[in-house]
């Protein structure tokens, strides 16, 4: 017997009996376990296979976006007003920093050497991000680095894990502060904006237009983002480039603005701010609008004081300047004065005159003997005295009343005298309502529709409005009634009437062009990168429902104003100017009385081309605003081709 075969009778030799269990059970057990695995596999690979295949693709295909070049903004002659520049920022990704605090601090110290940021500040930012669970997102620790510092950082960043140089598209505004209110600026998205913009396909690091043309025409200027798609392995190394789509540069926006005119007007206004002997004091704020009288194309829109909108791109270094303009409660630098409301004063008499002629309270030949004031007998035989701004002592028709800017004539036109002369309506309240309706026809009380943000609607008071508003705390009972005085005040653009210089300019345009109220447009056309016009911003306007013959009468009055009346100083040797002065009384915050200076006019008289509206917060219309308007007409005729 072989040891290897039968008969081995060691203690571990063959046992006598067979086990009792059924070995065949094992077969079923094997099939059961593989059955479980097969079902699971079928679920993963067949039922959910598509989903996993998609995730596999997402796993290793990375998309890197390429930001497009932002479109330029030019003036009407194609002169660029902005320049695209690269903005260099230093970023830190906390996750990629070394683990030890000491090694991190060494990096912070090196950053201080390179770009001058305080290590503590960086540390705080990093710790905050880690605490908030955002440690995989890059933090900007310094922005707007000078070129040399950026290059030094780029070189050193190879040895500084987690630190890198980021280049984002930026703007340099090269045309000067005169353009800041129009152009606006671009900046990083705010948290709220980011949510909305993401849906439009924006990248988080993509700057976005914040104000002015930059914001209004954002979708034209932005262009289309491009990308590269590449296969990436688990370590993040790129293996192959799968695809690439180049970004499409943004379109250029060509403005109606004439750069030379805009700069000239801004400079002219600045120089005219000081009080030239009238005793009212220096003007603090001013605005001017130069607009095509027919199409509403805006050639110049100036707001004083101006500011440098390059501040925003360099907010950290110029924090003091930014702080100053943002918290300016005296002149409200950031507010566009051309779009902000003020009492329009006598410029509003153009509306009253048109309303009177159209409603028949006066005719072109109606004449009143105008003295120093108007006395009206009230209910209890009390005599109310409504003064004119000076003693005219002459017989006036509507033309000379516009020319000399008589208050009394327009009191009578709008409200009558409760005896022989009727007003615009059958009673005091109706007259007020009718005047308000005419103001609205000329675009008051609502935004003009200009392509800029932040436009004010102004205010047109009427009996209903007064009833609604002047109640409650601070008002006596019955103070919300509409009195004759309210109609009188409205008739001369005082009291509760508020209008923006742009609204005044628009009304002037409608009178000049025979009744079309144009929508002002800063931009003229959107031009593609190839130089072809993508779309033009077509002139729009609405007809004012008025017989043109009444407007002709008003125009004659305006011509008189410049030729012999209160607006004489707006006259120009280059063209025939017609216009209207305005001097609106108001109470300064300290309670003292002061007045706004206005002039609005058009030229040439026979075929109106442009409208000029000038506003100073302090001054007399005929003395302060009219000469400035005259110079603007002159400059325009000489230098600008409409």
């Amino acid at each position, binding site marked *: 017997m072989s040891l290897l075969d039968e008969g*081995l009778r060691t203690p571990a030799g063959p046992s006598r009996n067979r086990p009792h269990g059924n070995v065949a059970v094992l077969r079923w057990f094997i099939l059961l376990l593989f059955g479980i695995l097969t079902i699971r596999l079928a679920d993963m*690979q067949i039922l959910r296979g598509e989903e996993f295949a998609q995730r596999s693709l997402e796993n290793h295909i990375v998309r890197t976006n390429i930001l497009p070049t932002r479109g330029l903004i030019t003036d009407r002659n194609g002169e660029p007003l902005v320049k695209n520049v690269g903005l260099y920022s230093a970023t830190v990704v906390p996750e990629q920093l070394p683990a030890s605090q000491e090694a991190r601090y060494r990096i912070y110290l090196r950053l201080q050497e390179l770009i001058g940021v305080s290590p503590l500040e960086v540390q705080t930012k990093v710790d905050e991000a880690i605490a908030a669970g955002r440690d995989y997102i890059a933090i900007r620790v310094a922005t707007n680095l000078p070129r040399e510092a950026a290059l030094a950082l780029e070189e050193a960043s190879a040895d500084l894990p987690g630190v890198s140089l980021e280049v984002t598209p930026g703007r340099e505004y090269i045309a000067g502060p005169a353009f800041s209110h129009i152009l606006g600026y671009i900046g990083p998205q705010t948290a709220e904006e980011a949510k909305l913009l993401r849906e439009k396909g924006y990248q988080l690091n993509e700057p976005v237009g914040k104000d002015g043309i930059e914001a209004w025409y954002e979708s034209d200027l932005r262009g289309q983002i491009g990308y590269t798609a590449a296969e990436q392995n688990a370590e993040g190394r790129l293996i192959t480039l799968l695809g690439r789509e180049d970004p499409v540069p943004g379109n250029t926006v060509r403005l109606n603005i004439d750069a030379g005119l805009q700069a000239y007007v801004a400079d002219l206004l600045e120089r005219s701010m000081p009080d030239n002997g009238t005793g009212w004091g220096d003007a603090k704020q001013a605005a001017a609008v130069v607009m095509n009288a027919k199409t509403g194309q805006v050639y110049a829109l100036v707001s004083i004081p101006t500011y440098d909108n390059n501040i925003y791109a360099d907010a950290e270094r110029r924090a003091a300047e930014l702080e100053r303009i943002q918290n300016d409660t005296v002149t409200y630098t950031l507010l566009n004065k051309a779009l902000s409301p003020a009492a329009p004063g006598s410029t509003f008499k153009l509306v009253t005159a048109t309303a009177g002629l159209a409603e028949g309270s006066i005719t072109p030949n109606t004449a009143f003997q105008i003295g120093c004031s108007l006395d009206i007998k009230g209910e209890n035989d009390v005599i109310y005295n409504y003064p004119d701004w000076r003693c005219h002592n002459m017989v006036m028709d509507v033309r000379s009343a516009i020319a000399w800017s008589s208050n009394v004539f327009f009191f009578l036109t709008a409200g009558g005298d409760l005896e022989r002369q009727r007003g615009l309506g059958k009673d005091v309240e109706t007259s007020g309502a009718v005047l308000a309706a005419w103001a609205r026809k000329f675009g008051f009380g609502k935004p003009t529709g200009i392509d800029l943000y932040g436009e004010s609607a102004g205010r047109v008071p009427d009996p209903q409005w007064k009833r609604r508003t002047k109640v409650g705390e601070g008002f006596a009972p019955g103070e919300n009634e509409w009195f004759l005085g309210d109609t009188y005040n409205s008739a001369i653009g005082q009291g509760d009437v508020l209008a923006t210089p742009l609204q005044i300019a628009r009304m002037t345009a409608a009178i000049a062009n025979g009744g079309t109220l144009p929508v002002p447009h800063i931009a003229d056309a959107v031009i593609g990168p190839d130089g072809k016009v993508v779309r033009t911003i077509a002139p729009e306007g609405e007809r004012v429902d008025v017989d043109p013959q009444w407007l002709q009468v008003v125009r004659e009055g305006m011509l008189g104003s410049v030729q012999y009346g209160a607006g004489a100083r707006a006259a120009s040797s280059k063209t025939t100017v017609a216009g209207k002065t305005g001097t609106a009384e108001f109470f300064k915050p300290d309670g003292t009385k002061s007045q706004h200076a206005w002039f609005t006019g058009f030229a040439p008289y026979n075929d109106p081309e442009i409208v000029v509206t000038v506003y100073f917060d302090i001054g007399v219309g005929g003395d302060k605003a009219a000469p400035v308007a005259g110079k603007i007409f002159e400059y325009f005729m000489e230098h600008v081709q409409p």
Partner: protein
Amino acid sequence: MTSVTIGGLGRSRAGASFWRGWDRFDYVMVAAALALVGCGLALIHSGSRPWYDGPITSLASPVAKQALFAAVGIAVMLGVSRIDYHRFLHFAWLLYGLSILSLLALFALGSTAYGSTRWFDLGPVQVQPSEFAKVAAILCLARFFSEHGGDARDLRSLLLSMAVVAPLAGLVFVQPDLGTSIVFGGIWLGIVVIAGANRSHLLVMGAIFLAILPFAWTFAIADYQVERVAVLVDPNEDPLDAGYNVLQSQIALGSGQLFGKGYMQGDQTQLEYLKVSTKDFIFSLLGEEFGFAGAMVVFGLFILLLMRGVRAAQLAGDTAGQLIAVGITMLILMQTFINVAVNVSLFPVTGIPLPFVSQGGSSLVSLFASLGLLQSIVMRHRSYRQT
């Protein structure tokens, strides 16, 4: 007689005994195992591409190394199949003692990887004592039951048999290696069921086990195991850390769909998103590149191999042979099931290789040695057949 060496026996009886029993040698079983090794070589070649680009013939090549180990394994299998399995039963308790000692020695001398101490690092090769211990446990159980009337019907022998396996399973568990301790449990369970354990005994023990489980969860299971179980529930919870492997293996497998992405075309593998793609996660690589169809082919090979193991148990001439065959079949079945279950996210990550397929020399050699034992049982069944 027992002192005679095997080599000496071979020489003295070579002429007469070498051809004995070869007609009963189970070629189908070996063919199934070799087919699995072949699949493994192909998959290792694909999975090692990202980190090995030398020639396939070089000894540094993981494919060549694996092939070499397979050759060694086959030699060991043939050698073992020549020896009567009763010889191994004779040394069962000695092997058992050595297993305990080497598992204890691990705590002092072992190498730690992935937070677990499972290996002795002996220069070029790593030795995993638990591989050895599993075979020792099978032999001890077989010997125990063959000496105790061949059955586990009385509670005393059932509990004693458990006491034999428990120290091994416990030492493996604290390495920690949850998977292998479950393999021990599976081997024990398979053997006692075949040895005729009373069903009600098993049910009561199962109930007690389930009752203890929550305490084990709290006190005995290491944090990493809790974490691995947790990420199994939702791998997206922590995609970059503990859940990473689970998530990537799901994506690899799932994205293979019905027919796979093609050989060496699996993005998950080739771009190294799938870690240890030639070892513990080789099944995910299979699923990604060959799809559901490829997985079914491999399942078929495993089922064939295991059925041949069951056949060996049925043919076995005596209790000891039958129980050894059952134990080895359970060993391969449990390892295969746990490994695939890990790959399809039915089981937490435990570090058990896929038998015959995964890259790794000591596992391959010991598996072939186990097959040798099965062959030894098949080749001698007639001699020990009792009526």
